[in-house]
């Protein structure tokens, strides 16, 4: 054991070797100033919190206890219950060079209770290979001596196996094997038990400085045992060989179902190990912050297996078995109570029996009641909580001669002493009054198990159902409705209907909104009607009427066709309106000629012959016919 020299820091936040790290307010910016103000307020708050003198504990831990030459191990001196201890000067440790890294302080407030600690961290660099021991340290603080445990460390020549790097660690060599840094153990509270005796089983997962997630409940072999559900896992930290481990503890209970040399386990815990993806590429910013930010992680499934655990299961002794023993194992107490105690014949009494204690309560059956014919009893109402099981019987006294409820006995096998025990309660005196005159005793009888038709489980036979009497609709093979031509033809009809109605609706809408289109559409029909009239005039040789009608027909037709005001259409229209529309020159000439004939007839009607009238009619017909063929 080596003694460490320490000095009290006198309440200063920074002292000893760290004096130079005190912030200089003159040199810091506004942000730093604000930060320190917050820290100061926090400190004041902490100091004002009710806090009693704490016990100081001292521990020495290392981050791992197997390393290789060229790497280092971190030694932590943890002081719990104070932060008022400066860094001790370590004596020389055989095989290692020692460097002080700095302190780390922690304050936690749980339910108003403040606990604080300080850790002084050192780096130990191995100087040679071999097995070494960091000796136990003792130190004096405020008159008391605190001693740590010795910590073994093994230094090897080469790395002991490549271990995936933890997510946020640098890629420093990790000499410990994976099995040393994550492992599981299985423990039982006893290695010898009786059949049906409760055995507390614990599976612990130890993790040292690894990023583990998705931890599953352990599965384990339990042939010959009945296993219960796991309780909520516990988490805590534990030091093994001086190395701090995170521990996840799973607890459950098992009961053996047969005697013999049985085994529990191996238990297997499945989880995922998170490791940083190895990539030689640096991020764009080439900065540690951004590199960490853009880092990717891989998840590797792990199955951590424990060893198996032998358990010897004994049969219950066959000697001195109490008469009313029905399988209860453990360490119990037994209580019985009756309410009410003053009743009439036929009124119900509640007999409450409570069994309290440790053991396999699932196997505890209600004590057998020997009530004779004086009482009618019903099936009990059973309730169970942690370490307590209650049976409530309803008893009906049949006679007013009853004076007591007989003694009740509960027997169990005490697994601690390995013997049978019987606890008796009662007899309990009661007063049963006779029924008022004229009333009859009525006791409701529950149907016995198996007697009810509803409860009876009928065993049904199974076979195929008989053939069909009628052949149904015999149809030719391969004839399907979708192949039927009439069916296919019918499918076209609604489509045609939709298309037709769509076209008609569009046309109707256009006729209502587009006047030019409506006039153009009506133009030939109207022209035919007018031509019929013109032809009549020709037949009767009514010159004035013929040319007037011809002129009007041409005017109206051209007006409708080209959406122009009909009254103003004359020969000039040909030049002004029709020629720019690229209408055939012959048609334009015919129109001009037709208008000229009409004008000539108007001013010199005597010179007009029937042939000229016929020619004008023909010209008019041709104009309309040819213009109808012209695409607009």
């Amino acid at each position, binding site marked *: 054991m080596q003694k460490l020299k320490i000095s009290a820091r006198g309440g200063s936040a920074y002292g000893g070797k760290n004096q130079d790290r005190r912030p200089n307010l003159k040199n810091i910016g506004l942000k730093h100033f604000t930060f320190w103000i917050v820290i100061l307020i926090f400190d004041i708050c902490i100091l004002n919190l009710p806090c009693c003198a704490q016990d100081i504990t001292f521990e020495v831990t290392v981050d791992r206890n197997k390393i290789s030459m060229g790497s280092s191990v971190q030694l932590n001196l943890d002081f719990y219950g104070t932060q008022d201890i400066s860094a001790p000067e370590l004596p020389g440790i055989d095989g290692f060079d020692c460097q002080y890294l700095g302190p780390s302080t922690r304050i936690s407030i749980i339910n108003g209770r403040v606990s604080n600690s300080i850790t002084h961290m050192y780096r130990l660099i191995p100087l040679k290979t071999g097995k070494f021991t960091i000796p136990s340290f003792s130190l004096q603080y405020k008159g008391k001596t605190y001693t740590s445990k010795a910590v073994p460390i093994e230094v090897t020549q080469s790395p002991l196996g490549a271990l995936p790097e933890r997510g946020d660690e640098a890629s420093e060599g990790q000499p410990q094997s994976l099995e040393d840094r994550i492992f599981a153990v299985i423990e039982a509270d006893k290695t010898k038990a009786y059949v049906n005796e409760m055995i507390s089983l614990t599976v612990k997962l130890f993790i040292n400085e690894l990023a583990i997630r998705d931890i599953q409940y352990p599965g384990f072999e339990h042939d010959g045992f009945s296993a219960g559900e796991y309780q909520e896992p516990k988490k805590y930290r534990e030091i093994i060989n001086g190395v701090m481990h995170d521990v996840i503890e799973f607890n459950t209970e098992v009961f053996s179902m047969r005697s013999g040399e049985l085994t529990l386990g191996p238990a297997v815990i499945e989880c995922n190990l998170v490791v940083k993806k190895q990539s030689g590429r640096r991020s764009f910013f080439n900065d540690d912050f951004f590199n960490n930010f853009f880092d990717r992680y891989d998840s590797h499934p792990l199955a951590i297996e424990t060893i198996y655990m032998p358990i010897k299961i004994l049969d219950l002794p066959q000697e001195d078995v109490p008469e009313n023993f029905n399988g209860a194992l453990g360490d119990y107490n037994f209580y019985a109570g009756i309410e009410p105690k003053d009743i009439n014949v036929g009124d119900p009494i509640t007999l409450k029996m409570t069994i309290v204690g440790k053991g396999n309560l699932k196997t505890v059956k209600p004590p057998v009641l020997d009530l004779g014919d004086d009482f009618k009893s019903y099936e009990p109402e059973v309730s169970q909580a942690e370490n307590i099981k209650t049976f409530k019987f309803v008893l009906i006294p049949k006679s007013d001669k009853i004076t007591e409820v007989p003694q009740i006995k509960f027997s169990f096998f005490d697994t601690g002493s390995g013997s049978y025990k019987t606890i008796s309660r009662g007899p309990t005196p009661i007063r049963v009054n006779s029924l008022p005159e004229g009333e009859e005793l009525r006791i409701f009888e529950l149907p016995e198990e198996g007697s009810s038709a509803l409860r009876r489980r009928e065993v049904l036979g199974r076979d*195929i*159902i008989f053939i069909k009497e009628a052949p*149904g609709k*015999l149809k030719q093979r391969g004839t399907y409705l979708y192949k039927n031509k009439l069916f296919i033809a019918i499918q076209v009809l609604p489509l045609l*209907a*939709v298309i037709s109605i769509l076209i008609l*609706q569009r046309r109707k809408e256009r006729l209502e909104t587009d006047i030019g289109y409506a006039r153009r559409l009506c133009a030939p029909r109207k022209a035919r009607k007018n031509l019929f009239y013109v032809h009549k005039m020709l037949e009767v040789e009514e010159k004035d009427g013929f040319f007037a009608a011809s002129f009007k027909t041409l005017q109206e037709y051209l007006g409708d066709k080209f959406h122009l005001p009909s009254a103003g259409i004359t020969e000039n229209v040909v030049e002004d309106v029709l020629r720019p529309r690229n209408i055939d020159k012959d048609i334009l000439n015919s129109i001009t000629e037709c208008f000229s004939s009409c004008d000539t007839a108007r001013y010199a009607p005597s010179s007009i012959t029937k042939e000229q009238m016929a020619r004008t009619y023909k010209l008019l017909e041709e104009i309309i016919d040819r213009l109808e063929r012209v695409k607009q």
Partner: protein
Amino acid sequence: MRIIIFILAVLLTFAGQARSEEAARAGSLFFQGNASYGEEDYEGAISDYEEALSLGFESGPLYYNLGNAYFKAGSLGKAILNYLRAGRLMPNDTDLKANLGYAQSLIKGGAIQPERKRPARVFFKLAGFFSLDGITLLCAILYFVLCGLIISLILLENARKILIYSSAAILVILIFFTSIFIAQYDKVLVQKEAVVIAEYSDAKFEPFDAVTTFFILYEGEHIAIITSREGWVKVRRGDGRQGWVKTEDIERL
């Protein structure tokens, strides 16, 4: 021209008459088969029902009775095959479902049901309610309703919103049932399904005798056909395993 029409009419009449005579014959064979079945002459019943089928006619009860006869005669594979064929024509027949379920429960090692995700399970369960003709008719009705709604949408301006929503809803339903139709079409007409009729059949990694057996198919197992090659058929079992079996060991639905 008249002569040709006359000849065609006469031929069609004769053809129709011949067809109806064959149908009557098939019906009579059905009853004959029933009589044989009643006398526990299952081989005779099988012969009569098969002859009715060979005339080119089919019906759900005919396949069902044939399945029963095969079951009684001890041919589990053929029984299941004919129950499945009957299921395509009368998919909602409870007797058929009961018999098929019972027959499949007797398959050695148990019937392996296809492993499907929930949406696919729902889809195929729904598809199982319809025969090919039934789903065809339903799709046609939905199509007519959709066209009627579109016509109303064109003509009636006042109820445009409700008609648009109704049309969209009917369209979605129509697409869904059309997909069921396609699934049924694929199942019924493309003949992608089969049943093992041999007592057992080695499903091999390759279509040769002297290669390793991957798994064994037992009589009555319902399988999907992937491809075929010179006396071998590549099949897929319900659990997704695929292997080559001999053509004579299976029969297509």
